[in-house]
């Protein structure tokens, strides 16, 4: 990272109500730095939306819209359509490309917003969909989502004496998006900002739909001290739990290969949502990661 001169423009203002150490705020700030000011953002209901726009305050310095929980992709479709029509028919929006970016959490994307997302991707709208994945419904106190990982304890998948937390593996959104045949899919992590920002830039430049799923540790929902947000995100990548890759026009490319994959122990032990795990549970998780990494060639 040395020598990198990150853009100094701040299109995401301070004063928002995100928790101290909020990963979602980092996602938004970095995404806007990469996309630049000729951007319109559509946001699903969720943490990012609530914490950034309590009337009459907004943290956004680009045009921004929120309508509902399940429809950010549909709202963005409408915006993309309007910009195209108004450029063509009424000489509005200038000659430069306007980036339309939809932000949705894992609930608003992989669960309730899944249909709208699938429709928007399949229709080929020129938009970037950024799924900020904190692996549960964090806006309402950490209920499980389709993106909650195996054995994580949430308020609706609590670790009890009979059930070891979430009993299903995490929904594989990048592969589902790949099956839509869209031109660009990427995973990212807030702990690798240069990688994420390059991906956002590329996604904006590409014609047609792009989907980026960025892992975003959540201090409150995952249960760790705020200062660990970046460290935990980094561990997810270093352990192979969250590989960084992109699929461009069907070509899979791994973007980061740790010299030696770390064991998952430390990652799990740093978070309250995993504190119920026994050594046997941890080996189970490790096995699943090893299998997955084999697939990815990690």
């Amino acid at each position, binding site marked *: 990272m040395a020598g990198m001169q990150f853009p100094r423009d701040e299109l995401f203002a301070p004063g928002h109500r995100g928790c101290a150490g909020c990963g979602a705020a980092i996602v938004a700030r970095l995404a806007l730095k990469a996309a630049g000011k000729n951007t319109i953002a559509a946001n699903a209901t969720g943490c990012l939306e609530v914490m950034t726009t309590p009337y009459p305050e907004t943290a956004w310095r680009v045009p921004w819209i929120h*309508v509902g929980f399940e429809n950010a992709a*549909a709202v963005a479709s409408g915006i993309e359509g309007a910009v195209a029509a108004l450029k063509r028919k009424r000489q509005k929006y200038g000659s430069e490309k306007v980036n339309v970016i939809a932000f949705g959490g894992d609930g608003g994307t992989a669960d309730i917003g899944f249909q709208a997302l699938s429709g928007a991707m399949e229709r080929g709208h020129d938009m970037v969909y950024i799924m900020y994945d904190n692996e549960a419904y964090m806006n309402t106190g950490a209920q499980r989502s389709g993106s909650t990982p195996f054995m994580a304890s949430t308020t609706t998948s609590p670790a009890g004496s009979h059930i070891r937390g979430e009993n299903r593996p995490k929904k594989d959104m990048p592969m589902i998006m790949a099956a839509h045949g869209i031109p660009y899919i990427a995973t990212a992590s807030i702990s690798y900002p240069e990688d994420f920002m390059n991906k956002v830039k590329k996604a904006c430049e590409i014609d047609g739909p792009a989907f980026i799923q960025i892992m975003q540790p959540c201090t409150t929902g995952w249960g760790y001290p705020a200062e660990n947000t970046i460290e935990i995100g980094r561990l997810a990548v270093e352990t192979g739990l969250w590989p960084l890759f992109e699929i461009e026009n069907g070509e899979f490319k791994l973007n980061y290969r740790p010299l030696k994959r770390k064991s998952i122990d430390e990652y799990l032990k740093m978070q309250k949502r995993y504190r119920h795990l026994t050594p046997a549970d941890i080996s189970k998780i490790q096995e699943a990661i090893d299998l997955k990494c084999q697939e990815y060639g990690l």
Partner: protein
Amino acid sequence: MCEIKVITGTSAAAEAAKLADVDVIAAYPITPQTTCVEKLAEFVSNGELDAEYIKVESEHSAMSACIGSSAAGARTFTATSSQGLALMHEVLFSAAGMRVPIVMMNANRALSSPINIWNDQQDSLAERDSGWIQIYAEDNQEVLDSVIQAFKIAENENVLLPVMVNLDGFILTHTVEPVTLPKQENVLEFIGTYEPKHAYLDPKKPITQGALGDPNYYMETKYAIEMAMKNAEKVIVDVHDEFKEKFKRGYGNGLIECYNLEKAETVIVAMGSICGTIKDVIDAKKKEGKEIGLLKIRCFRPLPIEMIKDALKNAKNIAVLDKSISLGMNKGIVYVDVVSSLKNKKTVNYIVGLGGRDITFEDILEIYTDVETSEDGKTIWLGLKE
């Protein structure tokens, strides 16, 4: 010169959207609205209409895309019906709250269960509190004219509310009849171009739309819509007057239409296509020397309460026809709203035509007779089988 075409109600709505030169259409097909969105697809496909047509995967996304599009400054149209409108329910409130002037055609159709594709007005009446302006058309000409007027009403700076133009499923959507199509230049001159001043997603002037409104602000947003509805009452009349002046056609005063109310003591209050049959009955009875009347409600939201009260001041026996039912109250929705403002009047509620049950000339005759002897406040399900 104007062109007259023999077309369906759905085609009339599509023609109107084309005449209004809409920029974006986002729609999902549903019976009996389908032929409207097919017609629009044909217009776009043939290059007759330059619009972005977003073929969404559901009505919920249709309305969501329309909100995005309208918020970005585009003139936006959609169409739906029944289950589709119900699926939109959540975002209908968003559209009104965000003050985006979307125009939507709704083919009135019964709601499940049992599944039923035929006409009643339960679907749109169930959305009466969403903040949408609601207009009900009597025939296909009124469908076309209402959609054109709807853009001008919705986009008025003192209104800025979405407008739903309702037409009875099959009875109008699938019936062809002569419809006069005005010239597009005249229509565009009438509506004007949409230049949003309050909202426009412009990167050069970034605004935030759809913010969180906490208890300090929420009530005021609702009150603002109520004020806009109040303004709409006048705007609808003005737009209707202007339309009448320009295109030589009108529908009462735009909000209500009084048919033979002056001398009539026995009156039906109704909405939509059934008003045509009622007018035939009134004319037939007039020939026999009996004066009966009709109060047609053209605009249900905003509901012109004072005008309705005034129009019914001579009436003694008031029959309110409802193609809807508020279950658990045994009253139709129109009845509840209209009667809440009438004092010392005998009113009887007739639940008619649910799920497409045909309403005949004889049925209307029977209602006029029945209401004269029926007791106040009664609800009668017309033609209910054992």
